[in-house]
């Protein structure tokens, strides 16, 4: 069915619910689909940076997904990528000025390389440039929100753990840790953390699937 054809409200609601749960949790954008790993590896070393990168990702992904859902199928395939990438870079220019002037100059300086990279993050190219084009705006927006939240959850957990391990702080507040491992701020630690988090998610899903199968057998 074409995305412009009208479908019953209940069907759209079911699709919205499924898209949200899949992208945010069961097929998490980072831990299952391996999308958006770069900023987590390189810049996810303090919780503040994790939160800033999540907000910037949402600020880029939401309008890009909405735009591609509304106009994507009217554009030739090869034109889409430059449009949403340059558009995203423009939004991030505003975000950079805001962060530098109104929030923290130090935070902006430490994210100078990684903030603009959000414009060409795989999150934008695969979700806005891929998924959104073939879906109605409300579903595309739901996917963008779920993608931002799914990415945000993972980067914030990884950033918080790395900040505690490498600097002995959380959100800049000193924690009384006896052991501090500065190496946790290096990319290998993020790869290992992401690997164990992805395995944990697969384990939870297999436990849920086993319980569901057992209850179906009991009821059947």
């Amino acid at each position, binding site marked *: 069915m074409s995305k412009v054809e009208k479908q019953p409200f209940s069907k759209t609601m079911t699709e919205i619910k499924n898209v949200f749960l899949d992208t945010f949790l069961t097929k998490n954008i980072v831990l299952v689909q*391996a999308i958006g790993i770069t900023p987590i590896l390189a810049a996810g070393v303090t919780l503040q940076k994790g939160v800033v990168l999540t907000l910037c990702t949402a600020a880029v992904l939401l309008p890009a997904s909405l735009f591609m859902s509304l106009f994507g199928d009217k554009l030739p395939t090869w034109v889409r990528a430059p449009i949403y990438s340059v558009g995203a870079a423009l939004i991030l220019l505003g975000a950079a000025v805001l962060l530098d002037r109104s929030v923290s100059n130090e935070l902006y300086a430490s994210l100078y390389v990684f903030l*603009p990279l959000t414009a*060409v993050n795989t999150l934008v190219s695969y979700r806005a*440039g891929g998924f959104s084009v073939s879906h109605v705006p409300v579903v595309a927006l739901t996917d963008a929100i779920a993608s931002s939240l799914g990415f945000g959850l993972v980067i914030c957990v990884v950033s918080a753990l790395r900040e505690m391990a490498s600097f002995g702080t959380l959100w800049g507040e000193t924690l009384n840790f006896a052991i501090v491992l500065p190496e946790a701020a290096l990319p*290998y630690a993020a790869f*290992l953390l992401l*690997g164990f988090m*992805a395995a944990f998610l*697969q384990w939870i899903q297999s436990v849920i699937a086993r319980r569901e199968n057992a209850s179906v057998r009991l009821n059947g």
Partner: protein
Amino acid sequence: MTDFIKFILAAAVLQNVVLMTGFGSSVMIRISKKRTNILPFSALLCIFATLTVLVCYPLDLLIGTSVISKYIRPLMIVTVTALLYIASVVLLRKRFPEVFSRISRLLPIAAFNNLVIGIALIINHQFSVSLPGAIGLSLGACAGFLLLSWLTTEGMERLDNPDVPKSFRGLPSVLIYLGILSLALMGFSGSVSMI
């Protein structure tokens, strides 16, 4: 010439850009799933990364180091990449339509990714480097991407076996494998990054 060779070696092997900075890691994991895509994708990546650096290098000098130029530099790099991408599409569609139809799916991912934009950004931001050094860094980064993609494909094939615990099969084991590779490289080259 020394800079050129030094940066090629550093970015490709000693301090592999993908493992040490994370640039292009998501794309690398996806590309590694299909062995036949690795070489054409890395070649396209190399073309876009080197051309972007070549065009942005003089533009960087032109816009200077004022506060405004600091804000507009990322937008300039993305716009240059977009123009290079459009030029390559137009050229391929007119002159080599068969080649275009074969690589049209890889082309936007090769042009718009963290590796291409990231290399152009760090060349100006973190250190001042000569033009041969900048070209060496972008070529080395793409060679490093190719090398790591092959290693990841080999790793994926070997990790796809029943000895791996069920929860770790697939992406988790690949991420841990890349983490161990990154750790090994850090042990080999030290934790002080040149890139």
